[in-house]
């Protein structure tokens, strides 16, 4: 850690440090202590043991003056630098041997700290799981450190504990596992539930008589010193009781992509059930969480972890990075963190790391067939980003054979999406130049606006008005003129009249052709760039608002966007986002449109789900924002009420004294007057109350809309999947098409990635939508979701 970084890191955890530091000249000494303590255990020319001994005597000298500070720093280090936990425990032991009372103070401090963390529900900074699961996990994860001691000194109680865990783990409900797996098959690597895997690892550790090779145990060298010191009795510790608002870590599944056969040289990869595998993974994971704000420092720490020489470190790091990136339902951090970190790692170790990343990419590519759709999307997302930082250099020739598997193969689907994303970060002609010809059939079409009323299209209904409208826009006519031109299209015109005169016309609830003409013109005017489109939509907002009068019109508007930008999914995504934010289109209309036959066939394409995800996210963000506003208003109101109460007491007190002391009534009356105006007036309270009422209503509306939106999504999913099953059965063809697989996985994705929201609607979903009579293939994603949240 650089000196600067370390300082920030410590101060983040101890805000008080800063203030104190400014006030006195102890600054230097405290800084020096901090630096010494945080650095011990890092790479050094002398042995860890002698460094520890040296540090202990330095600290002993400073203890009388800086005890609180020293203990605080150690406490922060021990909880934030877990890879060095044994280093700090030894240090505390040594200090304790020298100064008995400081050991006790340290214990008190760290237990207090633990309690705070538990109350704040920062389980390992958000590793979430059900309460009992979490307890078992906590016990198991401590055993690599304490197992040997416990089995030596308390063997009977320890055995009892282990057998309790055994029976607990064997009885757990594991229905949620399929929803959390990255791959649908256990070949080549089984994907166990995390707790099961840790239990297997601990059992193996036990059978090895608690011997492991990963943890540094510097205290062994000080056995005599520590053994002679007086022991403290550990104060009893009660876990804070469960509260409804406590959120426990969600269960997870182990992610493995490498084994010893993948590592050509150097130390071999520990087996899946070796405790060392758990320990090294856990250390990497903790390092990611500790340094996510600084990718360079994070890379540096990862490459210099203490245990790195005993394992193929690069392979372990990359495996854990992918496991975090693919983590279901959601990764801990924004995806670009993992991507930028991988780039940083490649830059730091240009001779070894890129090879491991490439090997991982090849493995992922080969295993696409059984990969969860959500993870395929993240894979595309990451790889296009990664390549954009390395000039898109890749062994493309080796992937040409993908087309032999047919254009619907997982590899082709992946490449098509990858090329689309690569186009977004470069440009079409560039792809044509770098991608081998054999793969050109998978390149996206040249993106171009598709303006329906172009002159070369011949006379089609509305073309003349569109032309006039465009000219008027160029001539900078005002909105009323434009509206007048637009109104020359009859309100009931659909543009189909001439072609199908006999056909019965569907009555539209909005002026269909008018909308088409206007939208095409707006899109054409804005077709140069996103910014141009934004200003066009803003400029024409009033005209659009006049025509887009209901959901049917909204959906039709989306159809036109789709027609105009079908070759440019990114444009569609950005534009729809804008239309929703400008409240021209509702989230529910977007969802209904996505499930219409217009889009349904594109369900295997990623952009559809980009639009879906972004729409749901917007709704959720809106509701959360209003929730925050209501909370704020409530607090404000409570404060006002508090003040009013004080006012009432104060005024009545004054009135009493007025009665008693009529002689100074004049003065008191004045004071009353002042008191009344100084405190919030009834008017102000009324105003606040009104504001609060309005916000509460706004929140109720937002919550209702959000629930409605999710119900629509799931209803449409069920309809579309049921239709597919029925049709396939009628036609006696295979139900399990690629489309069906994708769509059911997307249903599961929407359920689990939004589990926080969807859980609130569980009873409605169970009684109204996911009823027992549904096909089991539709019901199973829902059941997995239920198992996950209960």
């Amino acid at each position, binding site marked *: 850690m650089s000196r600067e970084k370390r300082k920030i890191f410590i101060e983040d955890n101890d805000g008080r440090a800063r203030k104190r530091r400014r006030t006195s000249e102890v600054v230097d000494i405290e800084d020096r202590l901090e630096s010494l303590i945080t650095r011990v255990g890092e790479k050094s020319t002398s042995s860890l043991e002698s460094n520890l001994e040296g540090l202990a005597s330095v600290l002993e000298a400073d203890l009388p003056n800086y005890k609180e500070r020293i203990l605080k720093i150690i406490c922060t280090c021990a909880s934030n630098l877990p890879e060095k936990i044994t280093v700090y425990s030894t240090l505390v032991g040594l200090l304790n041997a020298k100064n008995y009372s400081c050991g006790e103070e340290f214990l008190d401090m760290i237990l207090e700290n633990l309690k705070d963390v538990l109350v704040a529900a920062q389980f390992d900074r958000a590793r979430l799981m059900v309460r009992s699961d979490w307890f078992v996990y906590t016990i198991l994860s401590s055993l690599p450190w304490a197992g040997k001691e416990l089995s030596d000194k308390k063997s009977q109680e320890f055995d009892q504990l282990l057998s309790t865990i055994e029976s607990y783990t064997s009885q757990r409900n594991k229905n949620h596992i399929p929803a959390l797996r990255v791959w649908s098959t256990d070949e080549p690597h089984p994907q166990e539930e995390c707790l099961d895997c840790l239990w297997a690892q601990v059992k193996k550790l036990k059978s090895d008589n608690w011997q492991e090779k990963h943890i540094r145990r510097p205290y062994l060298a000080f056995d005599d010193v520590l053994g002679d010191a007086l022991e403290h009795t550990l104060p009893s510790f009660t876990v804070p009781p469960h509260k409804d608002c406590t959120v426990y870590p969600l269960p997870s599944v182990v992610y493995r992509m490498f084994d010893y056969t993948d590592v050509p040289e150097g130390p071999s990869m520990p087996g899946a059930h070796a405790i060392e595998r758990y320990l090294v993974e856990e250390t990497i994971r903790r390092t990611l969480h500790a340094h*996510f704000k600084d990718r360079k420092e994070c890379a540096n720490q990862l490459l210099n972890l203490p245990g790195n020489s005993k394992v193929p470190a690069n392979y372990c790091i990359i495996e854990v990075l992918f496991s975090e990136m693919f983590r279901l339902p959601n990764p801990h951090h*924004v995806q*670009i963190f993992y991507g*930028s970190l991988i780039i940083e790692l490649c830059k730091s170790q240009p001779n070894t790391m890129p090879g491991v990343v490439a090997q991982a990419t090849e493995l992922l590519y080969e295993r696409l067939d059984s990969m969860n759709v959500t993870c395929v999307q993240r894979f595309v997302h990451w790889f296009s980003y990664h390549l954009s930082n390395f000039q898109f250099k890749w062994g493309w020739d080796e992937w040409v054979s993908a087309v032999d598997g047919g254009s619907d193969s997982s590899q082709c689907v992946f490449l098509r999406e990858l090329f689309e*994303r690569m186009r977004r*970060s*470069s*440009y079409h002609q560039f792809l044509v130049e770098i991608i081998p010809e054999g793969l050109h059939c998978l390149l996206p079409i040249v993106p171009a606006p598709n303006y329906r009323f172009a002159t070369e299209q011949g006379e089609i209904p509305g073309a003349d008005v569109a032309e006039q409208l465009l000219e008027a826009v160029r001539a900078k006519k005002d909105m009323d003129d434009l509206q007048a031109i637009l109104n020359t299209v009859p309100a009931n015109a659909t543009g189909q009249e001439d072609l199908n005169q006999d056909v019965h016309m569907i009555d539209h609830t909005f002026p269909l052709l008018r909308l088409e003409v206007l939208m095409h013109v707006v899109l054409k005017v804005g077709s140069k*760039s*996103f910014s141009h489109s934004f200003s066009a939509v803003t400029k024409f907002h009033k005209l659009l608002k006049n025509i887009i009068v209901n959901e049917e019109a909204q959906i039709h508007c989306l159809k036109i966007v789709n027609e105009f930008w079908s070759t440019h999914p990114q444009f569609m995504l950005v534009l729809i986002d804008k239309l929703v934010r400008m409240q021209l289109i509702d989230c529910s209309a977007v969802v209904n449109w996505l499930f219409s036959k217009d889009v349904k066939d594109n369900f295997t394409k990623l952009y559809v789900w980009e639009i879906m995800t972004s729409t749901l996210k917007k709704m959720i963000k809106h509701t959360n924002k209003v929730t925050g506003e209501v909370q704020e208003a409530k607090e404000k109101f409570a404060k006002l009420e508090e003040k009013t109460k004080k006012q009432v007491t104060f005024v009545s007190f004054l009135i009493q004294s007025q009665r008693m002391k009529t002689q100074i009534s004049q003065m008191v009356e004045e004071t009353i007057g002042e008191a009344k105006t100084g405190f919030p007036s009834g008017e102000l309270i009324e105003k606040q109350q009104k504001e609060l009422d309005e916000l509460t209503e706004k929140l109720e509306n937002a919550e209702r809309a959000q629930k409605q939106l999710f119900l629509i999504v799931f209803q449409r999913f069920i309809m579309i999947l049921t239709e597919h099953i029925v049709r396939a059965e009628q036609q006696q063809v295979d139900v399990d098409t690629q489309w069906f697989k994708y769509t059911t996985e997307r249903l599961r994705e929407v359920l689990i990635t939004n589990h926080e929201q969807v859980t609130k609607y569980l009873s409605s979903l169970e009684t109204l939508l996911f009823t027992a009579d549904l096909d089991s293939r539709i019901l199973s994603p829902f059941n997995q979701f239920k198992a996950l949240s209960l």
Partner: protein
Amino acid sequence: MAELSAYRDQHFRGTRDELERKLESSATLYVGNLSFFTTEEQIQELFSRAGDLKKIIMGLDKIKKVPCGFCFVEYFSHEDAQNAMWYINGTRLDDRIIRTDWDAGFVEGRQFGRGRSGGQVRDEYRSDYDPGRGGYGKKAQQTNQPVITGPAVTYSKR
């Protein structure tokens, strides 16, 4: 938060304190060292990876009104802009290492280059040859160095 860099907008209207306060809660970033050829779509693709983008404002040559190698990106939230500072600053866009910096918020007029020739000041005096930014610096071009012209009229076309 990602620490502020040393750069401060010299044309900011307001006190130094106001500027610092605005920077600390800002959701807008200045993005520098872009190629003149880099499009809004490419910027959207990269920066939307850090969070929801409100808008992108392309920096334009104040005379020719064509991109001149910088832009502002505005997010809906400070946190998302923070992600961009953490994970995008110093990585590549269109094969150039770009620089991002906190910005106090876009004000009309700031989209234009402040150099004498219309582009950014840095492109006035540069002596290196940068094909993504019009070849040599303006000053050097006057001494008869070969000239690479910027992109055509609009920035959405390659």
